């Protein structure tokens, strides 16, 4: 825990206090809930409310206060009320969105009777502060991480090798791919949307889609690898999301720990479903099929609007969330059609429809405002915007190469590697070359250019 605090303190030590307010609140309320009989529902609800108010209060203060004040002022102006709230710019503590969700899930799991409260603050504090996942996830469940932390496994060469491999993969994705795509994305989004063509918008959507995937999955690789070196297994956060054949499938593959969290603590409760297990795996995709109730449509849109807002205090993120909800909703409505026409149910047709729509959703995620988002999306549906392009040819070539890279790595991972592993000497040779190339590239490209995108969420 001390090492984790030092790690966090490298950024700003004073913000450790925010994390400990959240952790201590949940530590004590969870114990209190655990000591309160299930029949005393009122007291348990009261204790749960304390947790939610403190955690969400901290999150709202640091992340949403400016957004709420700004929008409230706009509303006051609209109503003609001569009053303005002060606009306070507050530095967002690193990782607050992640550790807040972890502490909330812990207390809710205790409340639901899925886990017992942890008596040792050292163990619980380590669960909250555990440095590999502290700043940008994967979001952990106490039921999965705490028992491992308590066990404190001994060092093993196998753990070291597996962890190193994941760290090397992560560094390659971040410093070689994400950081080198970033200037092209920045350049494109800095242009006035009026001047862009539809081809540019598609290219930028794909390029940012690649950048954010490489960037975020890189962090997850490094987090999983660092934990693994200490003998701790934390759930995977990505599983080739751009090979999804539907949006439901996408959410089983993208930011799995968040979508699993959203499934268990937002979507299922809002849809009126009782949650009986707790796991950071699986994603929300499975949850979408667990009920036929009409409440699930409302739950779907509300859940995704909140999911959007979790990513940032801006209406563009809400729009991003609702865009996903709308497509999932349409997927549900068109299910009878897909079942009636078998070709529509094939993987490749699903992939060919899902990929561009998923990439297009990155436009509101990256654009500076809703106005720019709409201008860019308008281009996509304007036939005349397909007759020219405004950026250098390299941008389009890089986007195509990245897509090929993702397809090749998917096929290598699923088909080539299992085949190669049957010939140990050959796979040994190829893997030695692979790690040599990765290490050289990481050494060459390691530069303090940018932080991980998800550090800000």
């Amino acid at each position, binding site marked *: 825990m001390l090492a984790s605090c030092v790690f966090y*303190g*490298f*950024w*700003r030590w004073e913000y450790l206090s925010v994390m400990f307010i959240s952790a201590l609140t949940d530590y004590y309320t969870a114990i209190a809930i655990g000591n309160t009989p299930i029949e005393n529902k009122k007291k348990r609800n009261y204790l749960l409310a304390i947790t939610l108010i403190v955690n969400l209060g901290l999150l709202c203060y640091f992340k949403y206060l400016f957004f709420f004040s700004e929008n409230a002022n706009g509303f006051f102006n609209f109503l003609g009320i001569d009053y303005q709230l002060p606009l306070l*710019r507050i*530095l*967002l503590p*690193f990782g607050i969105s992640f550790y807040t969700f972890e502490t909330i899930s812990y207390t809710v799991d205790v409340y639901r009777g899925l886990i017992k409260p942890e008596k040792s603050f050292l163990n619980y504090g380590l669960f909250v502060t555990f440095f590999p996942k502290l700043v940008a996830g994967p979001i952990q469940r106490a039921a999965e991480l705490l028992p491992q932390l308590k066990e404190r496994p001994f060092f093993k*060469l*196998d753990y*070291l*090798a*597996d962890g190193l*491999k994941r760290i*090397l993969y992560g560094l390659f994705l971040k410093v070689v791919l994400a950081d080198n795509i970033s200037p092209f994305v*920045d*350049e494109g*989004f*800095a*242009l*006035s949307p009026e*001047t862009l*063509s539809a081809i540019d918008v598609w290219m930028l959507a794909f390029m940012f889609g690649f950048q954010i995937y490489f960037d975020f999955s890189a962090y997850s690789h490094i987090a999983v690898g660092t934990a693994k070196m200490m003998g701790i297994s934390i759930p995977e956060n990505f599983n080739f999301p751009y090979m999804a054949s539907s949006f439901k499938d996408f959410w089983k593959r993208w930011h799995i720990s968040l979508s699993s969290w959203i499934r268990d603590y937002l979507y299922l409760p809002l849809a009126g479903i009782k949650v009986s297990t707790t796991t950071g795996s699986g994603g929300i995709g499975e949850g979408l099929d667990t009920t036929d109730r009409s409440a699930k449509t409302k739950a779907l849109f509300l859940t995704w609007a909140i999911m959007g807002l979790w990513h*940032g205090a*801006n209406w*563009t993120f809400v729009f991003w969330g609702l865009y996903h909800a709308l497509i999932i909703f349409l997927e549900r409505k068109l299910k009878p059609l897909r079942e009636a026409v078998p070709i529509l149910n094939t993987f490749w047709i699903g992939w060919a429809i899902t990929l561009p729509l998923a990439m297009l959703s990155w436009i509101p995620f*990256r654009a*500076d*405002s809703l106005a720019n988002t709409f201008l860019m999306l308008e281009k996509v549906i304007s036939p005349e915007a397909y007759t*020219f*392009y*405004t*950026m*250098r*040819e*390299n941008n389009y*070539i890089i986007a195509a190469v990245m897509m090929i890279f993702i397809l090749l790595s998917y096929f290598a991972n699923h088909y080539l590697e299992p085949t190669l592993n049957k010939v*140990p000497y050959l796979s*040994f040779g190829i*893997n*030695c*070359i*692979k*790690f*040599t190339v*990765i*290490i*050289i590239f990481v*050494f*060459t*490209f*390691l530069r*303090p*250019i*940018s*932080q*991980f*995108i998800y*550090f*800000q969420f």
Partner: protein
Amino acid sequence: MTLRKLFFEILVGLVLSYFIIAIFFSGDRKFENLALGTETATYNAVDKAGMPFHIQRTNKDEYDVLVKAWQQRGSKPVILFLGNSQTHSINQQKSGEVNFIELLNRKAEDTPYEILCISLPNAGLQEFYLIYEYWKNSLPLKLVVLPVFMDDLREDGIRDVFFSKLVQEKFQLSDTSNALVSKINRELRSYWSSNDNTKANRDKSTFFMKETFQEKSEKYLNHKLDSSSTTWVNRANVRGEFFNWLYKLRNTLLGIKANTVRKMIPQRFEDNMHAVELLVKSRATEQTKFILYIPPIRGDAKLPYDLDGYTEFKERVRKLSAFNSKYVFYRNYEGIIPPELWGYKAATNLQSEREVDYMHFQYKGHQILCDSVQVLLHQVIYKDGI
């Protein structure tokens, strides 16, 4: 067993990469040689005392030294030359050979003017516009000489690496009603590091690290490695070589050569022409005159342009100058350098060793260009005095 194998694979990878890095990242490496080719050298004009007339970036160090040198030389009214690598490159340079900016300054010694220059590799005309708007605030610009390269019309935007002083000072252009000016301002703003958590800044994201122990320790480590390890320093050049190889690979795969016709990108073409238009229509006055010239280009090889497009482009530049002919002058110097004064550059693909260079010529070419421009300077400004 599988994980043991993995451990040895990583170990072998580490050992092999160590030796490869030790061999290939050592020694003296200059990326500049890759960009220009080994036959072409960079040269910035200086005075007899070695103080600059000519820089390649508007950053604090170079710009402030230039202005100080200009003040020490007597703060004469300025003839400002804008340029790209043609201005600061000499093909097959021999000892004592200088570029046309320095030659022009030698000839300007008896005039009441001083010639200053900024030339940016792959310069864009929007960057020229920005340079003019910033430089005019601290230097009395009496004449601005602007080469309009067809190649440069493919460029877009502002590169912060050449404008760090403007970024530091949070410089903004004033004519915000113009869409192009707003675009340039927006781009400059995107380079600012600020303390607000706006979405644009979030994506830059490094501002979150300002003054933190992490930032300081990273800087310290980088500085230590920079000062103690050539291998570490050489990484930048290896990156340059890698990107150069990728560029050549692209050209090889797509069959692109130095004389392959470069397609114009309509929006960029229009934005760049508009940048010139802004200068000659609203900035050219009795106090500040402008010269637009079509720069020399190699004439003994097939031009890498669509010829109709090139003719149309020259005509458009000529018409732009004609709009304000009292204060804006036009010359076409495209054919003034004879074929034997041009050189070759490193190949832009993986198949050949070298290719004809359309942009950079030898010292004698600089002399010819100097003489031609000198005649024009005399007509436009020297004959009138201040």
